[in-house]
């Protein structure tokens, strides 16, 4: 159970209802992570705009952004985000084999990854671990493939998903019932480092029909 109650549509104020309507139109449902922000609509309105901007084609393709989201949220052991984006990225054409190879540094030698994607994912790992220690070779590799507007979008996508994953995990936001039966890819390929995240993962798998 989440640590704060979700704000349902009929309990929401006008600003929150507009956010929920926009969410429903974009994602076909109002996720729990949106519902918990209904307690502070003025903050939620601005916060979610970042994610509405990211989750679409931009200067960077949505497909590439999904790879960054999977990588950054997996590194943060966010089971909620990883599960959501295993599904979104699959819809955009990321195969389960490619998803699984994103863990650790497997992507570097995986036949599923192009050189530009490897450069981008290397940068992602450095930003998550130590943004002040990004080697010049990593930047040089990224700049071979991406211009300034795309680099901004790469860095912003990683930062934003670190933000929302910690935001949701700290509040204990739960996966929606619709995910029952989902076969996890990334966490099966590489278990979480966090004991608490492992607990969430084990609980989810134990709830899966026929588990």
């Amino acid at each position, binding site marked *: 159970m989440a*640590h704060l109650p979700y704000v349902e549509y009929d309990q929401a104020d006008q600003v929150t209802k507009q956010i929920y309507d926009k969410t429903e139109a974009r994602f076909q449902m109002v996720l729990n992570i949106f519902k*918990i922000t209904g307690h502070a609509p003025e903050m939620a309105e*601005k*916060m979610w705009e970042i994610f509405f901007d990211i989750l679409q084609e931009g200067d960077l393709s949505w497909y590439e952004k999904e790879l960054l989201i999977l990588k950054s949220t997996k590194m943060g052991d966010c089971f909620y985000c990883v599960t959501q984006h295993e599904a979104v990225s699959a819809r955009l054409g990321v195969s389960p084999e490619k998803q699984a190879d994103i863990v650790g540094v497997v992507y570097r030698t995986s036949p599923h990854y192009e050189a530009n994607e490897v450069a981008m994912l290397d940068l992602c790992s450095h930003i998550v671990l130590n*943004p002040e220690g990004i080697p010049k070779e990593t930047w040089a590799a990224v700049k071979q493939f991406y211009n300034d507007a*795309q680099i901004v979008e790469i860095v912003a996508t990683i930062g934003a998903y670190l*933000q929302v994953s910690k935001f949701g*995990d*700290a509040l204990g936001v739960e996966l929606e019932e619709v995910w029952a039966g989902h076969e996890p890819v990334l966490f099966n390929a590489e278990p979480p480092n966090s004991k608490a995240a492992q607990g969430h993962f084990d609980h989810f798998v134990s709830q899966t029909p026929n588990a």
Partner: protein
Amino acid sequence: MSVVNQVESPTTGTEEVYASAVNYFGHVPNLVKALGSNTNMCNSITNFMIQSLGEGRISWAFKELIILKTLKTMNSHYSYGAHEKIARDLGVTEAKLGDMANSLWETSDHYSEAERLVFHLIKQIGIDANDVSASLWEQLKQHWNYGQLIEINAVITTFLMIGRVGDALGVSDPVLFTKDIS
């Protein structure tokens, strides 16, 4: 030096957000200029930053302490000095700032129990956001309402993001506000 070109003058799609930045901060911060080549990201991140920096459900002065503690906990450096100045301008004493920077806040008379609990939340998010205990949330709820707790959690995680983005792009903003905020 910034990894990307800092866009000094607004282009199509960023005129309004550059104007908002001037209106709010007194100038366009370097972070906004570094984001300036990407219209969507520049708009949404700057607007969220403006929303976060001001009086809200919790006081701006306490938000600044949350921001400073978050940046320190996450080992982020972007705008640290600027937020120390903002905190001072908003009336936070040197003694309170000093006790924030290490572990003295845990026993310092300058911190209330409600504030200490928020710092425990920051510390735990830094260690493992998956492992914030129900007990800590129950204690937090005794001092803060739901809206305040969402705002607190948003400020912590937003400045985790801003710190990461600023440091990764190599941006420096030694002063965020050039207009009087006291």
